[in-house]
């Protein structure tokens, strides 16, 4: 009775789940605006409003702003994973997936693989907006891609943290607003939009140890000098450590659930 026309492998299960996940982003204006509209708005807003005050002109501000916006957009896109997982769980969709003869990890994997595409989209939109406003990177195209990939890698590592939060906190709206607050605080208390030396001493100390600042500095260096610095290596290793800790932890919590 059962139709089996293709081999129902884990890979094809994960690809189907990823497809589903991306369709959800494309159809849902709320999710899409997080990924596409926010980077555009923030780049325009910050560039034209604060460019003159902070750097003397919009053009002079853009090289600094672009790396800040890139990391902020990526973190924003990454934060969606927790809320989306929780919404799926609460809607009963995951229960339904669990009754299917598929790889049990596929629903979670679909979310996290989908995240990579959302991160890419968000990062590219941020860079294109800045480019249209007149920003020209001193790095060549391959190094520009390297900077983007590093940002996506860091974003993806935090996706796993947000996914874990999504599995543990029952209320989807709470996850959404918590994620937003954390990202706002983390990015504004960093070197994303302002020169650190203008800040009071205590705040300066906090900003300097903020991991978001360290990430932005590493990406800024690549974009400015066109070469991979030691700070970029440090950031890459940190991302790797986050993934090595949170990927198994998230998978464990996911499998234990129910």
């Amino acid at each position: 009775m059962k139709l089996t026309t293709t081999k129902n492998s884990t890979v094809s299960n994960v690809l189907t789940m990823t497809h589903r996940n991306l369709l959800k982003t494309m159809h849902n204006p709320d999710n899409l605006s997080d990924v596409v509209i926010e980077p555009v708005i923030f780049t325009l807003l910050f560039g034209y409003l604060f460019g003159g005050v902070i750097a003397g002109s919009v053009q002079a501000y853009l090289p600094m702003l672009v790396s800040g916006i890139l990391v902020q957009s990526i973190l924003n896109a990454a934060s969606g994973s927790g809320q989306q997982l929780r919404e799926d769980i609460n809607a009963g969709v995951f229960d339904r997936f669990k009754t299917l003869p598929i790889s049990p990890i596929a629903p979670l994997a679909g979310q996290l693989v989908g995240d990579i595409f959302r991160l890419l989209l968000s990062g590219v939109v941020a860079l294109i907006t800045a480019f249209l406003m007149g920003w020209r990177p001193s790095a060549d195209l391959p190094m520009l891609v390297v900077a983007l990939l590093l940002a996506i890698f860091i974003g993806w590592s935090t996706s796993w943290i947000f996914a874990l939060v999504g599995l543990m906190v029952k209320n989807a709206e709470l996850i959404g607003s918590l994620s937003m607050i954390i990202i706002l605080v983390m990015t504004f208390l960093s070197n994303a939009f302002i020169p650190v030396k203008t800040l009071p001493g205590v705040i300066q100390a906090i900003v300097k140890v903020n991991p978001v600042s360290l990430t932005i500095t590493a990406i800024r260096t690549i974009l400015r000098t066109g070469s991979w610095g030691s700070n970029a290596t440090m950031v890459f290793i940190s991302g790797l450590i986050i993934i090595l800790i949170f990927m198994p932890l998230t998978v464990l919590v996911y499998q234990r659930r129910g």
Partner: protein
Amino acid sequence: MSDDTVIKVMNIKKQFRNKVAVNDVSFDIKKGEIFGLLGPNGAGKTTILRMMTTLLRQDAGKVSLNGFDTLTQSRLARQQFSITGQTAAIDQDLTARENLMIFGKLNGLNRTAALSRATELLTDFDLTNSADQTLATFSGGMRRRLDLAISLIGKPTILFLDEPTTGLDPRTRMQMWHAIQKLVAGGSTVLLTTQYLEEADHLADRIALIDHGKMVAMGTPSELKKQVGGMQLRIEVADSQQFDQAQTIAQATLRLPVNVNDRILTVLLDPTSMSQVPHVLQQLQSSKIPISNFAIETPPLDDVFLKMTAGKN
């Protein structure tokens, strides 16, 4: 146990903290049967269903689907069935066709097969005109139909339906009933839970009555009705001043216990007392007690359960 037994449930138990949710429930379901789990909210129907569909591990007992144990052969067991849940568990952000395609692929169909099966089901369930709209525009009935269609995409031999018509209007309910009957005619076996006596009566070949996690009775609808008794008389007295008098008349004439609630009298009738009902009406009339409503009806489920559990505790 004959060879055409598709579902076997043996002495399953489930306890949540100190509350026993399901206590020693057993039943067999044969191929092509519609089996109804009937009971009020919180009786344990959904918990039984969750254990049968591998979503919850039972504390004791065994469930086998087409011979596959749900605990030790869970992935094989999952290939045997589909489930349609209480709330339509489908993606709001996807279109009807996309939803069907995704589940088709997850059931092992390739793109072409999933697409043609999706089109087939959209036609069967009268959803062709809205196939490419997201579910935000769908009515409750359309969502349920799509939900059922999704369950059928892999042509499962066993179908679990958890309260498939709760909250639906009568017309949509009839459509769902037809769809379910059509499925069984095609050789599927269906287990459904419901809190509507009428639904179980209409659809199910056999019914298990569940209350407080226990099976209180099992049999064909007519067997159960005989056990429960027959119909219920309901009289609504217009004037509350004359209520006590009406109650006395009903009690004296029918010689049965009379339940009172607000201005409504209800009496569970047995076959012999049915012929006494006209006398009740005559006496009410001669005593000039006006009534605003009068009915002989199937007793609501609550009353059935009161009767079924009475004397057993």
